[in-house]
């Protein structure tokens, strides 16, 4: 469906001609294993061209190699997948930035794609672009109903499938996976956070357009409509982070807390900064040793020997307070979410949209 080029045929998408209607196109794509199981928008030349044009990039620019099949992602190939996902052209710079982010070495995309763990790249968008393209950061921020959220997340998944080779049961070895593997894109509710937005906290200008990718397991709802004080709320949130079977007791790493605006305001009203919140939750988030099997404790001893300097202490969910990253998103109501990570081998990546392309991986 992409246009041929005489420049480098190995980089160009091979055109496919399919006679028939929408159903025929989708049957053809599904038969070839091109997709996520849902119907796709046929990536006609005109649609793909519009996508590329919106990026201001050249068709054959190499974005990088996508694990675990190490397929070469060009701007054109990413545009084809964004089209299939249903993106509008003005979403495409976000999709490109997300692809550039997940292929950065510290993200360990190979691990994220090939693991048995239920882990998916979660995209967080900050900056004016999120309002401009209509990303939802209010009610049902992680849920259905907004084209931008749904299709940007889906576009990244299609890139991971079609270019990266992450086919379930073949190179994607996830035992159960999770629904975020269809699409997982959210924006921070910058209008409602009582603190600096996430990207400003991480050193970017307030008006910068930023994408963050995070290796996210399925998340845990934290209902607290009773606590009126920061002390009570932090106690509830901290202990909600201590499921024995998430990856953190074994592998630590970065974890993500998505606070709802109501919870964020309770904490901020008592003078807590985000760093203060992370420090307090670090103290609460400890897994009682009695909740872990002896075999699991043996492995933790090898993976995190620092947890055994005092065997009377419970196991820290995180190694350091600063490993808890906090965003504010959602509408009214008392529900926040703890989103466990994959472990210390996967680092979240924060990237400016339209910023300098990532360093290319060698073969």
């Amino acid at each position, binding site marked *: 469906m*992409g246009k041929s080029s005489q420049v480098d045929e190995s980089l160009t*998408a091979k055109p496919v001609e399919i006679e028939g209607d929408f159903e025929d196109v989708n049957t053809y794509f599904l*038969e*070839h*294993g*091109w997709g996520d199981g849902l119907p796709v928008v046929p990536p006609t030349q005109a649609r793909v061209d519009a996508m590329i044009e919106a990026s201001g990039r050249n068709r054959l620019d190499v974005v990088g190699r996508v694990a*675990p*099949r*190490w*397929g070469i*992602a*060009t701007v*054109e*190939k*990413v545009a*084809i*997948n964004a089209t299939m996902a249903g993106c509008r052209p003005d979403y495409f710079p976000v999709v490109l930035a997300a692809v550039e982010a997940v292929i950065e070495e510290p993200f360990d995309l190979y691990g994220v794609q*090939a693991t*048995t763990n239920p882990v998916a790249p979660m995209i967080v968008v900050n900056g004016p672009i999120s309002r401009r393209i209509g990303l939802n950061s209010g009610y049902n921020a992680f849920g259905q109903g907004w084209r931008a959220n749904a299709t940007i997340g889906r576009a990244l998944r299609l890139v991971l499938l*079609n*270019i990266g*080779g992450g*086919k379930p*049961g*073949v*190179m994607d*070895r996830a035992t159960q996976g999770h629904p975020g593997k269809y699409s997982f894109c959210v924006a921070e509710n910058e209008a409602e956070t009582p603190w600096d937005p996430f990207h400003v906290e991480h050193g970017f200008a307030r008006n910068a357009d930023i994408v963050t990718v995070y290796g996210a397991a399925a998340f845990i709802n934290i209902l607290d409509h009773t606590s009126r004080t920061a002390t009570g709320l932090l106690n509830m949130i901290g202990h909600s982070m201590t499921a024995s079977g998430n990856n953190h007791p074994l592998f630590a790493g970065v974890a993500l807390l998505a606070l709802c605006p109501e919870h964020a305001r309770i904490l901020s009203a008592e003078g807590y900064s985000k760093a203060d919140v992370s420090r307090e939750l670090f103290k609460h988030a400890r897994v009682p040793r009695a909740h872990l099997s002896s075999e699991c404790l043996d492995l933790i001893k090898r993976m995190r020997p620092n947890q055994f300097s005092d065997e009377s202490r419970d196991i820290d969910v995180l190694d350091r307070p600063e490993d808890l990253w906090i965003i504010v998103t959602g509408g009214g109501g008392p529900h926040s979410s703890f989103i466990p990570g994959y472990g210390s081998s996967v680092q979240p990546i924060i990237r400016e949209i339209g910023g300098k392309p990532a360093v290319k991986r060698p*073969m």
Partner: protein
Amino acid sequence: MLIASTEFASLGYGEAAAFGLPSLPLVLVQHPFGTLSPEKARLAGDDIMDEVVFAATGPTQEVEKHFRERVPKPSKMTQDDHG
């Protein structure tokens, strides 16, 4: 040579094919072994030792033939390279 559990065989074959190495020796240990006792894990290692030695020291053409014949035929899930 790549040593993997049977659970990750398709990942290994797929990656070897992507790198143009269809004869890459892929020695498989029966999955699961993460829950085996150290003693049983050693026995699992013993089970593959002859093949590991063959892959490392056998005549190149025989080694390539042996491992190439083991590669499953590509399915629709792996053969199409689509952008």
